[in-house]
């Protein structure tokens, strides 16, 4: 009798590892990120680029649209133009600073759209029955069959150039991949016992998805999305370079690369600048994404 009474209490004193700090998952991820100097460095660079884009009007020394016949293709430092001028006599530094805006937009917006749409489709596909899954995933497979660059070019070519169309095209390119990632993650979670346990509790599908699936799918989806940003920046530059993305005279790194290309023998250094900007931005996003990935890989 006394044993019956004491047994459950025996567990109460069972305060296993007392020093084990109780931290939530995200707090754990944050803790790891804070102790990763490399990722922090690149995150700082990304932040600088973002700030540069936001405060472009304050930072740019000249009007990026002001053309001048006499100032065409001037070298570095010519009459206050620190980085020289382009083929229409516009200040290169100012155009580079303003160009960050379109590059970042083209990097982030399509990924956000694709994450929202593709992620939702993926979760539905992963959690709904076999038939819904087949319809969604087979449709995605059709898009998957094309190389992403070709698809982006084809879609934005068909819709006509322009920034909005370019973003839409890129989003369409990313949706199948995003959907695939979300679907795989959902299917994995779905097979775990705790989903079955939740069903056994009498929970409906919506409640299960909301409380048990989303939290577990968000991680992989977010990791994948962050790795897509750099791809998106590169692809957007490619579109602009081909004249399918941002329209002139808007300052855009890809477009600048395309127009300066003809002057490569006159001002080779200036030519390399937009390319370098694209490279630095995309690689920083990439490395930050890698850091987030390893920080989120907390063994649970």
């Amino acid at each position, binding site marked *: 009798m006394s*044993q019956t009474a004491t047994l459950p209490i025996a567990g109460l004193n069972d305060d296993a*590892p007392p*020093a084990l700090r109780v931290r939530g998952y995200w707090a754990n991820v944050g803790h790891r990120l804070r102790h990763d100097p490399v990722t922090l460095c690149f995150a700082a660079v990304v932040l600088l680029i973002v700030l540069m884009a936001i405060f472009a009007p304050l930072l740019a020394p000249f009007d990026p649209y002001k053309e001048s016949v006499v100032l065409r293709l001037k070298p570095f430092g010519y009459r206050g133009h620190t980085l020289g001028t382009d083929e229409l006599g516009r200040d290169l530094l100012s155009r580079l600073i303003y160009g960050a805006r379109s590059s970042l937009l083209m990097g982030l917006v399509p990924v956000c759209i694709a994450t929202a749409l593709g992620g939702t489709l993926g979760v539905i596909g992963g959690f709904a029955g076999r038939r819904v899954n087949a319809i969604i995933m087979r449709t995605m497979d059709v898009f998957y069959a094309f190389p992403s660059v070709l698809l982006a070019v084809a879609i934005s070519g068909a819709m006509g150039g322009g920034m909005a169309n370019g973003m839409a095209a890129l989003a369409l390119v990313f949706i199948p991949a995003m959907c695939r990632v979300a679907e795989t993650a959902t299917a994995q979670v779905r097979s775990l016992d705790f989903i079955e346990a939740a069903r056994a509790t009498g929970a409906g599908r919506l409640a299960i998805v909301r409380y048990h699936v989303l939290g577990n799918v968000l991680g992989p989806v977010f990791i994948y999305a962050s790795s897509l940003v750099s791809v998106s920046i590169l692809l957007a530059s490619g579109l602009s370079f081909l004249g399918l993305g941002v329209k002139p005279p808007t300052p855009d790194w890809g477009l600048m690369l395309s127009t300066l290309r003809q002057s490569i023998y006159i001002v080779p250094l200036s030519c390399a600048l937009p390319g370098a900007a694209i490279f630095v931005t995309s690689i920083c996003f990439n490395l930050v994404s890698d850091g987030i990935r390893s920080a989120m890989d907390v063994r649970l």
Partner: protein
Amino acid sequence: MTALVEVSDLSVRFVTREATVHAVNGVSFSVRPGEVLCILGESGSGKSVTLRAMMRLLPPRRTRIDGTIRIDGQDVLALDKRRLRELRGGLVSMIFQEPMTALDPVYTIGTQITETVMRHKGNGRSAARARALELLELVKIPEAERRLANYPHELSGGLRQRAMIAMALSCGPRLLLADEPTTALDATVQIQVLILLRRLQRELGMGTIFVTHDLGVASEIADRIAVMYAGRIVEEGPVADVLRAPMHPYTQGLLASTVHGQSRDGEIEAIPGSPPDMRRLPSGCAFAPRCIHAQPACRTTMPEPRWPSPDRMARCVRIDDAALVAAE
């Protein structure tokens, strides 16, 4: 008779950025040729790590191993890569809980055993093939000839386990390391594999170290038994003596809490609490927090091994007392 295996003061630590796990903390034991030593312990007690350390199978970058391991006179921790390869699969073989970890899914059973025999013994292909068939018959695989052409996934769990045993025996090891080889098997299959292993071990005269968490399995196969708790051997002795009259409170608790014909009317005498965190072991006896006999001295220092009789050891402060009382 000289010992086949001599392990002294073995400790294994896993060092990660976040913490150091003290998996094995000063383990010493020896195995004579042809003897079966069962290392009995619960999950996290360090029993499997001890076994893996003997084969140097632990990831070298994150593992710190101290102490000495001698197998047939060779200092295992000092062997170079070539010698180590000769040791593994030659003098020493290992079998696992999950045969799919040891068998390659893309080759047939026959090919795998044949290759192993050719590599270690330098036999020709046809001789090696004949040896493979012989081995499958030795482990009582029905229709051995046909099974040689099977892939691992085509076999049932019990046959797969037998095939892995056949492969482990292919080079005539003198020491067999078995890591819970029957745990994943169904009851009716487990007893078949246990009896097979016992017979093979006797016929081939292999020294065997058999790691298990199951007292019943140990009672079927062991000559001697070493009970591990929190990376230390807390009790050791002939299997019948340990099971009949356990000395260490942990062994006593383990026996009492193993359900075996207890009356349905009463509760099972469970050991309270849970095993310690291997990242932060208490300074004294690791079992003290769960022990009903714990004294203040238990919490300060780990008791040294005590030998109440020549073939029995226990690390508990109460043992000497008992022996003294008996002497008076």
